[in-house]
């Protein structure tokens, strides 16, 4: 397009310039011929041609200046439309005015579209909090009554076991609903994550305290290597939740005896890195990407409990804070999950 345009312009200039030179030469020739080679007439016509040339140049210059004014106007029209200011040309028959109308309409349409999306988002937000709120009461009632049922005197052992199962499964359901609600909140950007500069040691300790009982039961040695001064920009509450998911996995996939979990925090130029190294079953390299996907479960883990949202949630939480999580692992030896939190 551009090349065609340039070529056409060069062609037009050549044609006009050529025609002008030819006409001038012919005109001067005729005039001098008619006046039988009178010098004064020759000079006069040369002067005339020269003034015409200057006039023509001035005209061309004016047209060019006008064009650049129009171009600037178009530029301003677009700028005004982007920032939502009122239109400047009003409603006239000019092409510029009609263009401004179209441009303004386009931006109005896209902003209406955005408003619609925002409205949809807030209705999703309302729905999610309704679900989470409305299911809470019946579920805790189920847990409560199954507990009462279990304690009823004169119940057969079998019935007692059934009641206990109901209680366990309900608790699991409660946890699942909470995770799903968190997940959709994170996905829709509904949760406000407040990321300020905090020392990471507090967050790590908080997370470890939630899995410590389970780790002790399995005889796993949990160690934290972290300088109290190591800081990162993060939301302690949510980050602890992400770390709990990683630590729970570390405990779950550790061998029954002699397991060990090392948590190491180090600050670097851009990110503070928290490594969670376990001595568990490990993950094959082909699955390193997949394990962070929603509802993905490795074939190796089918005998373990879980639904496959823990790692997905962790990654969502960390990404929302400008962080990241990755894994490296050797099957049979252990895995290292590395959490990156912005250090500045």
């Amino acid at each position, binding site marked *: 397009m*551009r*090349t065609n345009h340039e070529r056409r312009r060069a062609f037009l200039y050549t044609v006009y310039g050529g025609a002008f030179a030819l006409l001038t030469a012919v005109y001067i020739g005729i005039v001098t011929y008619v006046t039988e080679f009178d010098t004064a007439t020759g000079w006069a016509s040369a002067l005339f041609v020269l003034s015409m040339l200057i006039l023509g140049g001035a005209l061309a210059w004016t047209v060019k200046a006008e064009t650049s004014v129009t171009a600037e106007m178009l530029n301003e029209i677009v700028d005004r439309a982007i920032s939502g200011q009122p239109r400047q040309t009003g409603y006239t028959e000019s092409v510029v005015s009609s263009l401004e109308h179209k441009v303004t309409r386009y931006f109005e349409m896209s902003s209406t579209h955005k408003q619609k999306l925002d409205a949809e988002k807030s209705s999703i937000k309302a729905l999610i909090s309704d679900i989470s709120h409305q299911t809470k009461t019946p579920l805790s009632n189920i847990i409560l009554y199954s507990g009462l049922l279990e304690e009823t005197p004169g119940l057969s052992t079998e019935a007692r076991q059934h009641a206990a199962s109901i209680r366990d499964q309900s608790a699991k359901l409660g946890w699942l609903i909470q995770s799903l609600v968190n997940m959709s909140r994170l*996905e829709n950007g509904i949760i406000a994550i407040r990321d300020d500069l905090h020392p990471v040691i507090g967050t790590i300790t908080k997370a470890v305290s939630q899995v410590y009982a389970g780790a002790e039961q399995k005889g796993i040695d949990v160690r934290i290597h972290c300088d109290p001064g190591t800081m990162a920009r993060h939301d302690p509450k949510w980050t602890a939740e992400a770390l709990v998911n990683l630590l729970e996995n570390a405990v779950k996939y550790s061998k029954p005896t002699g397991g060990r979990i090392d948590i190491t925090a180090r600050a*670097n*130029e*851009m*990110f503070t*890195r928290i490594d969670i190294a376990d001595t568990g079953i490990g993950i094959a390299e082909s699955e*390193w*990407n*997949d394990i*962070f*996907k*929603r*509802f*993905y479960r490795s074939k190796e883990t089918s005998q373990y409990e879980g639904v496959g949202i823990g790692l997905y949630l962790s*990654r969502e939480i960390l*990404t929302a804070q*400008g962080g*990241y999580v*990755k894994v*490296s692992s050797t099957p049979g030896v252990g895995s290292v999950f*590395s959490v*990156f939190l*912005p250090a*500045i």
Partner: protein
Amino acid sequence: MSILQIDQLKKYYGHGVSVVKALDGITFSVNRGEFVAIVGTSGSGKSTLLHMMGGLDRATEGKVYVDGNDIFGMNDEHLTIFRRRSVGFVFQNYNLIPILNAYENIVLPIELDGTPVDKEHVDRIIGALGLKDKVRNLPSNLSGGQQQRVAIARALATKPSIVLADEPTGNLDSKTSQEVMILLKQLSEKFDQTIVMITHNEEIAQTADRIIRIEDGKILARPEPLRGAGR
């Protein structure tokens, strides 16, 4: 929607029996906003491929379309302008201008193009790369990681269709390399920026959405599927 399309790309050096096939019929496409890593050992043809994508070299056969433009169909002058506006480059050795400070380096390609600087956009990039208090520093006063971050900011400042990174972590230690990779990943998501990176380091490539492996000028096996469901 694909922003980069490579169709049966071939690059041969030499003639007859001594012909060297640097690229031998490469075909793939990259979607808008995708972060793709091209992995291969040295001599696999990955650098040649990147040079073709950026219009730095011409192919023996085949086509490269960036944003629907056949880049080998352009003459040299238009290709230069195309590169300045639509392609952001990040090199292993940063290629910053030593006498300009970080900010001046970042906005240089915009100023070369003669267009006004979108300050808001540039500031967002600088913020995302954690360079806010380094913008007045000369490159010689910045660490390797910081210099590479400035180079990345420069590549993104013009809002290019595609960012091409040639071993961006080649001169950095492994810790900093990891950080630069995470930043590239975040920028690609935050600004919907298409990034194609070449590297010989599999570990580094893990952060990308998709890995394309090439060997002897050909694509090995099928590219891996996109990571992260629903993202």
